[in-house]
């Protein structure tokens, strides 16, 4: 069976290609696919009847209980035949329905074939989750089919409506499926053979399954989607109404009724809603002018009927339900396909415009009439047989008291008769509307359809008759399903004649009243307009959606303010409310040592003062300075703790940050624009204080919880013995935790690139303009004396002393930076600090001599330096692998270099060189971007300004 489904899938994938070559001739080819399924089902029919239908098991996701289990029981056999048989015929019919030049044919054929496959899978599977898979697939494919012509907004809305409504039911069903599956089994045969104890969750699960079934089968209150779905091309409607999609709900009810029909709540949903839907559908059907819409409401009514009977859960009802499903499949497909032919041949479906079509299209009118009579339940058609047995089943159930108090049962019987009356009435209206020659209406012009186009409805219409006549034979094949139902007595065989029974009397009554109702249709129509619509599912749907949209907009307006301060506040509030409050409330009191030396207290007070003052300054430069002060204070604290490495690095970082900030500030207004005393500010200060308190509390609480020695206790000894260095900090950076450093320098690479990206936008590499190549601007005298680039700076900005100092210290700084780099392993220093010093040297050159001086000092591209640095770092990480070591492993090299003699090198120094290069490159990037880049922008703007002024004066 999996192969049959695979065949459908392959056909669906191949369909677009097939259509390209064959156009509409592709339909007969595709019809073969469900045709093959039909043939195979016929072939295994005898086995199924004998009770050993084929079964298959393929693993898919065993962990989720999703296994491709398939089996054929009588119920699924009947549905399978209907699905594949009607599917094949409808595809064949499409050959004449569509035009060769329809551009959406590739889409339609593919989706339709897939839809047929999904429906077949649905009725064949034995795994409830897989059933859900196919269930949703039919929803999605029908969505695409209903929206086949999406240019009209009505069609799009109808497609969306069917999608949402059936998915709502489907998802409710999914909860039920999982509740059953997790707690019992996903195997349908297990759930039927060995029903779980009916605790509240199981009952809820089954009822959720029913909700899925009701939504799919368009029962009240979900009924409104089905009439909307006739936006689909007529062949799709025929298939959807007769065999696929809506039958899935009936199938599910029929599937579970044998084991669960007596469960609390079941009958309310199937019989109650079913019969109510039968009435509502019929009521709407008798007033329609569009014959397709009339049929659609007719389907709603019939679905209610089928579900009511299928849900009864007695042997008689089971037999009747199957007979109903078959007869409905046959007559409804015939009628829809008839409508398709009429629509194509006359261009209208309106009963007020159609006239004389029956005479013009006699070969069509005959099968359609057969089907219509079957729908109305008239001897000797399939519909009559089915309806007789259904009435019999319901009457027996009412008599037997299976439906609660006897009164309920008889109310149900009356409702069924009333429903039948309406059915007869709308059938009459359909046949009259479609085929009658109406007085006062001009004869409809009819283009003769291709004989093939009519052949399919003829075939199906004849089927209605055959099945009716061969009712006893039919019931033999259906009996195994009835036998699987535990309750009720073994039913009598389906037959045309059971004698003068109550059902026959009721049928006759229904037909008589129905015909009467049709006769006085104008009166009925006027009466109907006075009855307010009882249940308007569609309005509920629209209201629900509108409410949803409004609620969504409201919620989003509330949560998505578009304001960064609010987002930050939300984060901080969570931080304060969760870890902060927990730390304060449950952390316990710690004894706190305020300081080791009074100097720490002094530094601390300065830092605090600077931090508080930042809040009250309005000048950007001042605030940068004050924040810098806290940073320098921190480096003082490091010194007081005896950590010179950290202090040096912190000091350098702070300096670099200050320089970079100041360079940036050139492009910003000098003052903050905010108001110093706004309420928002008070709020934020409060939040800031609370955050600070939380952080402090976390720090205190966690420091007090330490029970074990830190891993770093072993660092000094290990650093010397394994890392070959005396400076623990440096060994930690380039060896013990070199992997972190590797990551951090990648951060620098990204940061450097980012600065360049923001300023230069398009490229990583910058144009160099060394000082030597520059002409001095007017007003300066000749070449600069101390710095090459001095002459390029405007006279009023030059400072001779600065130039002299720069000249003197630049090389010293570079030397110091190299010293820091190479001595770092044993003395304070290292590649990072060294790189920062070298970078600062470049900054000094820039500040003293301008951008051309910078290009003179560093005549290379910053990106290249960064890249080389990263290359060195990465390669030195990889290099030990070549010598049988592990990544970033270091070793000592003792080299004999003639001028120096014996040299003792720890290999981690190469790593440090890379770090050095990256830091220098990043600094260069920063100065090039924030210095040179901004200079250029400013000059350009000034240039523009001057040009504009110049232009202004000339005018």
């Amino acid at each position, binding site marked *: 069976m999996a192969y049959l489904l695979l065949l459908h899938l392959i056909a669906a994938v191949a369909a677009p290609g097939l259509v390209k070559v064959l156009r509409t001739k592709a339909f007969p080819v595709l019809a073969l696919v469900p045709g093959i399924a039909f043939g195979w089902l016929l072939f295994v029919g005898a086995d199924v009847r004998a009770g050993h239908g084929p079964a298959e098991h393929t693993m898919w996701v065993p962990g989720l209980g999703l296994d491709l289990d398939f089996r054929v029981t009588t119920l699924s056999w009947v549905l399978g035949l209907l699905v594949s048989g009607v599917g094949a015929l409808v595809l064949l019919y499409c050959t004449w329905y569509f035009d060769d030049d329809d551009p959406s044919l590739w889409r339609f054929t593919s989706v339709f074939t897939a839809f047929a496959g999904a429906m077949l899978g649905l009725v064949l599977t034995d795994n409830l989750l897989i059933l*859900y898979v196919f269930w949703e697939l039919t929803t999605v494919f029908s969505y695409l089919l209903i929206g086949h012509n999406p240019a009209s907004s009505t069609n799009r809305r109808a497609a969306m409506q069917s999608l949402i409504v059936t998915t709502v039911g489907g998802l409710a069903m999914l909860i039920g499926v*999982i509740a059953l599956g997790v707690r019992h089994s996903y195997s349908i045969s297990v759930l039927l053979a060995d029903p779980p104890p009916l605790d509240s969750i199981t009952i809820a699960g089954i009822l959720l399954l029913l909700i899925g079934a009701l939504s799919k089968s368009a029962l009240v209150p979900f009924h409104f989607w089905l009439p909307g779905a006739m936006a689909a091309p007529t062949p799709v409607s025929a298939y959807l109404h007769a065999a696929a999609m809506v039958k899935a709900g009936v199938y599910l009810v029929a599937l579970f009724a044998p084991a669960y029909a007596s469960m609390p709540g079941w009958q309310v949903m199937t019989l109650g809603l079913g019969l109510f839907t039968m009435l509502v559908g019929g009521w709407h059907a008798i007033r329609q002018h569009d014959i397709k819409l009339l049929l659609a409401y007719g389907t709603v009514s019939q679905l209610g009927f089928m579900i009511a009977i299928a849900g009864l859960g007695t042997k008689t009802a089971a037999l009747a339900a199957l007979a109903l499903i078959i007869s409905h499949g046959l007559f409804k497909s015939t009628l829809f396909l008839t409508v398709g032919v009429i629509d194509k041949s006359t261009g209208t479906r309106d009963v007020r415009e159609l006239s004389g079509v029956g005479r013009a299209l006699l070969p069509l009118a005959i099968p359609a009439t057969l089907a219509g009579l079957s729908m109305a339940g008239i001897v000797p058609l399939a519909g009559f047989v089915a309806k007789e047995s259904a009435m019999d089943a319901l009457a027996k159930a009412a008599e037997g008291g299976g439906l609660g108090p006897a009164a309920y049962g008889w109310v149900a019987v009356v409702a069924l008769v009333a429903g039948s009356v309406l059915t007869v009435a709308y059938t009459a209206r359909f046949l009259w509307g479609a085929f009658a020659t109406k007085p006062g209406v001009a004869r409809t012009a009819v283009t003769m359809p291709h004989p093939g186009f009519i052949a399919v409805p003829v075939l199906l219409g004849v089927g209605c008759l055959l099945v009716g006549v061969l009712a006893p034979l039919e019931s033999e094949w259906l009996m195994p399903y009835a036998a699987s139902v535990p309750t009720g007595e073994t039913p009598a065989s389906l037959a045309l004649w059971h004698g003068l029974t109550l059902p026959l009397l009721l049928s006759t009554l229904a037909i008589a009243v129905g015909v009467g109702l049709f006769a006085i249709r104008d009166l009925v129509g006027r009466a109907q307009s006075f009855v307010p619509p009882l249940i308007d599912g569609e309005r509920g749907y629209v209201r629900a959606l509108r409410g949803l949209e409004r609620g969504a907009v409201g*919620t989003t307006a509330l*949560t998505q303010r578009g304001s960064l301060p609010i987002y930050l506040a939300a984060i901080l509030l*969570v931080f304060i409310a969760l870890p902060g409050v927990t730390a304060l409330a449950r952390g316990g009191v710690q004894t706190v040592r305020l300081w080791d030396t009074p100097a720490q207290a002094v530094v601390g007070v300065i830092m605090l003062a600077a931090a508080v003052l930042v809040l009250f300054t309005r000048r950007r430069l001042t605030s940068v300075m004050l924040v810098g002060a806290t940073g320098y204070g921190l480096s003082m604290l490091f010194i007081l703790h005896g950590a010179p490495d950290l202090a040096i690095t912190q000091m350098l970082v702070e300096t670099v940050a200050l320089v970079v900030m100041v360079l940036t500030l050139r492009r910003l207004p000098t003052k903050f624009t905010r108001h110093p005393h706004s309420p928002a500010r008070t709020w934020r200060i409060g939040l800031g204080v609370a955050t600070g308190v939380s952080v402090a509390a976390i720090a205190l*609480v966690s420091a007090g919880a330490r029970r074990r020695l830190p891993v770093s206790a072993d660092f000094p000894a290990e650093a010397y013995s394994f890392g070959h260095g005396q400076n623990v900090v440096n060994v930690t950076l380039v060896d013990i935790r070199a992997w972190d450093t590797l990551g951090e320098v990648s951060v620098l690479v990204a940061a450097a690139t980012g600065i360049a990206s923001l300023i230069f936008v398009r490229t990583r590499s910058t144009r160099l303009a060394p000082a030597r190549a520059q002409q001095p601007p007017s007003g300066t005298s000749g070449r600069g004396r101390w710095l090459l680039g001095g002459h390029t700076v405007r006279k009023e900005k030059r400072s001779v002393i600065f130039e002299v100092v720069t000249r003197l210290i630049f090389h010293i700084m570079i030397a110091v930076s190299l010293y820091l780099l190479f001595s770092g392993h044993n003395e304070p220093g290292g590649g990072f600090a060294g790189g920062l010093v070298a970078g600062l040297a470049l900054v000094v050159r820039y500040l003293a001599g301008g951008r051309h001086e910078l290009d003179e000092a560093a005549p290379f591209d910053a990106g290249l330096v960064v890249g080389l640095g990263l290359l060195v770092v990465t390669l030195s990480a990889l290099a030990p692998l070549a010598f049988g070591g592990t990544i970033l492993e270091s070793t000592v090299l003792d080299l004999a270099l003639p001028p120096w003699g014996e040299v003792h090198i720890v290999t981690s120094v190469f790593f440090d060189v890379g770090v050095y290069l990256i830091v220098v490159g990043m600094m260069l990037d920063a100065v090039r971007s924030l210095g040179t880049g901004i200079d250029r922008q400013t000059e350009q703007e000034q240039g523009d300004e001057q040009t504009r002024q110049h232009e202004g004066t000339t005018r």
Partner: protein
Amino acid sequence: MTASWIPNLVPFPVLLPLLGAALTLAFRRSPHLQRAISISALTGVVAVAALLVVEADSHGPQVLWVGAWREPLGIALVADRLSSLMLLVSSIVTLLVLIFAIGQGQANDDDETPVSIFHPTYLVLTAGVANAFLAGDLFNLFVGFEILLFASYVLITLGGTVLRIRSGTTYVVVSLLSSSLFLVAIAGVYAATGTVNLAQLSIRLAGINPAVALVLQLTLLTVFCIKAAVFPMSAWLPDSYPTAPAPVTAVFAGLLTKIGVYAIIRMQTLLFPQSPLQTLLLSAALLTMIIGILGAVSQTGLKRILSFTLVSHIGYMLFGIALATTHGMAGAIFYVVHHITVQTALFLISGLVERFAGTTSLDRLGGLAAAAPVLSILFFVAAMNLSGIPPMSGFLAKIGLLQAGVEVGTPLAWVLVVAAIVTSLLTLYALAKVWSQAFWRSQGEARAAAIATARVDDEDDDAYDFELTLEAEMEAAQQAALVGGTPVAVATRQRPLSRMMKGATAAMTATGLVIMLAAGPLFAFTQRAANDLMARDPYVTSVLPQAVRH
């Protein structure tokens, strides 16, 4: 026994991209060479990651103590089942997005993705992602985050337009805040335990005062929930992702939040197994799902809709984690894998839409189904996958979580099951609206509607000012032109799609189908991974073979 050289492969997913970044910086003037380098580096990562998956599955976690330092002194890199799987998925995604970006760059003349900036930064980003997955050390995890964050700061502001810088600011500032809090957490953890090695923490945290452990757990959780965009710390995401260049948004949306989710999984199972915080996390998951998806329903821009679904579906993963059962964890891992691929695919598709139609605003899109059938199929498949329509990976992932929820069966767990279903429905609704408007509606109708909306917008400017999102602003100028001038302006920005872009997008979408076909073995794998996580054992003993005893 595993081959001795395998552990040395563990750092390669970080080193290869870094090497690539170095080379692309060095060969900055040759775009061809840069492309070749980037593609080779990332292909290499995919290969290594695949090998690590196999090794971790058959021989247990692969551990490397970098620099051969004895445990627990140095930094351990660990590739267990979870991290190697994450690595494999993320490397496939980054490679495909790279190909997309190259396709876009080649077809573009306007330097939207400047090659000399994009390539090194993108490679650094992937190195950071790999590092985050492999870190066996809390501080190194922080470093991994920093690498990818800094690279992402650069990528999100690529091109330096006003819009990108403004939304980039939101992103950068929020990320900086979360990094600061992360540092606070690390300081606290080290202060309390004296170590940052995860395996050792797993042992030591159990020994400290539970109240302090709870404080540390909550701090870390806050940090990772910011990264993962969990409500109420999620609002930054829809405001910052949509404006970046398409490939950047795609990789951010697919990957970056999942690293937060990964970190939550790791810390909840390895560091704080005795404290599932079920009620707290389930409530957060609930709010994230529902508020996120309501956001998606309320939007009219494709990229923003997708960003909101992204937030919403983070709730699914958190749901699985919060259940703190093997099945919940397995479901969450499976969902992560699914969601990385599908979300990336959808953002790539929205990139194609933007390129093809010149906009991603639903008010103005139309007629795509007829005009671009391939694009339509890709969108439809990916959208249905995200909505959890069976039998695609989204459905399987959802089923895994729902089953786990039903198994737990507490009232709150049932509420979450229902919420997950509702979220699924609303996701379908939001995406079906996109389909209906952008793909089904005819272009003429779209134009007429666009003009009508533009007029309405003119009339009441401040009626829905929160809706005047960045994306909307971006459109505003064009809309103004539309009202004043000829309505044909809609179509003028259409550009053809390069084969490379389509190919990468199709491959990304197809990955969802591959996951579906391979769901059996993949789900079994995630279950084994979840078993490992819940047992903690193979992880801790592999990292610290000696220290376990004391």
